[in-house]
């Protein structure tokens, strides 16, 4: 297992290097954002431990650049800032886990193990329909590599449609899948969500089959990359 550790504090990085080496990981180390970005984009890592407060380029920007460049390695964010606003920013940038300082080394190692297991556990982690790609592991979607900003319901809707792409899915089926029995919704709200989703992924990708439901299709001429 090859790990990239990005941390600018010399003492902390010395301790982490020791602990990670003891746990049997092969380790690369970067102490600033520029170096981290370069290493992350050029080397294939199984996981990355990323500190957010970094010299030159901050951790969130590094992470965003990696994700835009198509780096899929799972990233564990290590930060002193534990507020939820910062957590949300980190996850939106593409993080897979988040650990707040101060922490116990054991916890870091446990999280890292879980992260690697999660990443390698799926045979084919990404689903694709044409240029539309969906990463269920990280709950992320993109079109032509450009990440989409979806609400949790929109993501769920898209996930279900990707899983059943090519098939006509009725409104009732979508309602049943998206909501509990507790939520008393009529199928009109589905139309609203489909409308919003169309705006984000391109309206031609979802076809309305009159009287039957919806169908997710690749655009004409697109081939599904795997």
């Amino acid at each position, binding site marked *: 297992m090859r790990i990239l550790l990005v941390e600018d504090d010399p003492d902390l990085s010395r301790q982490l290097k020791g602990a990670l080496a003891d746990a049997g990981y092969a380790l690369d180390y970067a102490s600033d954002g520029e170096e981290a970005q370069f290493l992350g984009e050029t080397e294939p890592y199984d996981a990355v431990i990323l500190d957010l407060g970094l010299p030159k380029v901050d951790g969130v920007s590094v992470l965003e650049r990696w994700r835009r460049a198509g780096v899929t390695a799972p990233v564990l964010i290590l930060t002193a800032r534990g507020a939820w606003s910062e957590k949300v920013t980190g996850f939106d940038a593409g993080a897979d886990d988040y650990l707040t300082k101060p922490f116990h080394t054991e916890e870091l190692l446990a999280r890292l193990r879980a992260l690697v297991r999660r990443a390698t556990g799926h045979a084919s982690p990404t689903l694709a329909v044409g240029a539309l790609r969906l990463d269920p592991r990280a709950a992320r979607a993109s079109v032509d590599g450009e990440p989409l900003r979806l609400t*949790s*319901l929109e993501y769920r809707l898209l996930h279900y449609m990707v899983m059943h792409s090519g098939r006509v899915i009725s409104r009732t089926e979508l309602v049943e899948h998206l909501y509990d029995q507790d939520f008393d919704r009529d199928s009109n709200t589905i139309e609203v969500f489909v409308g919003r989703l169309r705006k984000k992924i391109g309206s031609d990708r979802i076809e309305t089959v009159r009287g039957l439901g919806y169908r997710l299709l690749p655009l004409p001429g697109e081939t599904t990359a795997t």
Partner: protein
Amino acid sequence: MTLLGLAARTTARSTAAAVARADQAVLGRRSLVGRLVWLAAGWSLMVLAGMGFALTAFFDQAAVSRVDQELNDLATGLYAEATVDPTGQIKPPAFVDERAQQAYSGKYWQIADLPGGPHPRALADSRSLWDAVLNAPKSALDAARNKPGAPVYYDTLGPAQEGREPLRAVALMVYLPGHAPPVLFMAAENRSRLDKDINRFALTTGIALVILGAGIVAGVILQVRVGLQPLFDMGREVADVRKGRALRLTRRYPLEIAPLAQELNALLDHNQQVVERQRTHVGNLAHALKTPISVMLTEAQAHPGPLADVVTRQSGAMREQVEHHLRRARAAARAQGSGERTEVAPVLDEIARTLERIFGDKGVRVDWEAPDDLFFLGERQDLQEIAGNVMENASKWCRHRVWAEAREISANRLLLTIDDDGSGLAPDQRQEVLKRGARLDESAPGSGLGLSIVHELAQAYGGRLALSESRHGGLRVELELPKAEG
């Protein structure tokens, strides 16, 4: 009042008292509108009253002088036509005046001489006088005597109305050839009609002027109201800022108060900056301490021994202090009341999205429900912290499902409910988990710093946190929070 309450709690009692005193001082002053209206009303009253008196006096003078002229004509006529017979007796002219023929008709004449006393002695008179004598006050007689040939006008009483008939009279003293003592030609006219005319004029003028005055005051009120409207608007906008419906003043104000609006906005911005700077500063300091603490903890763990124990214990204490003061700094910043409002739905959504990712292994599904137009009266970061901690806690202890729902319960309160399908908490455990100082490494559902942070934050916002059993089996957390007006 929530903000005031907040300030009182987090800063000092005296501040709140000072604010209350200042409020009273501000409210105690008479209103600007009242002042302007009273001033205008007082001034118009003076001018109009003066005008009324002048007009009435002028009319009075004009009317009286017309009567005087008629009386003078009558007296002069008597004088011109009167003859003295060879015996020295004065013969009145034989002209006919209808009214002077009727007794007590109100029109009288008399030719008299003054044999020495103050009372004239009638030599001839109109029939209307019957057996009465037209009297004249001494002053009038003196004046007539001093200026022979010139008419002297005066008021006196006539024979009608039991001797109380108000008369306007003239006395003309002349020397007639063939009659040695001076002769007094007198004419009088009942002045009650004249008085009635004067009074009626005064009354009409008075009413007209009162109406005019009321009109002027109404005009002034309207003018002041409309003129000061921008000030009232500004007051409303400032209230909106305080209530969190706006961040700054946005209207276009007239030239005179635009600088005031600008200064207010600058003050708001400055306030915001101070809050932000303070928060950033304390945050930076606290966060900068976290890495060294982490290093010390790890180092101590790696080399067990008595020193390591002390370091571990002290680092733990330092960590708690750092967390505590971070929260204090945020609470203090919050007390400044930036009046921000935060849309609830997007916050719940991003937290749900993030939690589903964090607890992806477990397959946690977070459903949320909130109306689009629901706003929390407070900072986004705080709502994120409150909802995030409760929902994270729920995700940690649920089996697979978490439900979050926010709704309006009154005009300025909202209720955030978070349910999970875990095993929940026994009633006696529920109070326990809210207590501060619970350990960071949670060992039971709901325990740990997460909920105590939420509890503290909710209290700082004047909110309420309640725990109960969810119908899905797990814990139900209910949070009552301030709602911004939509």
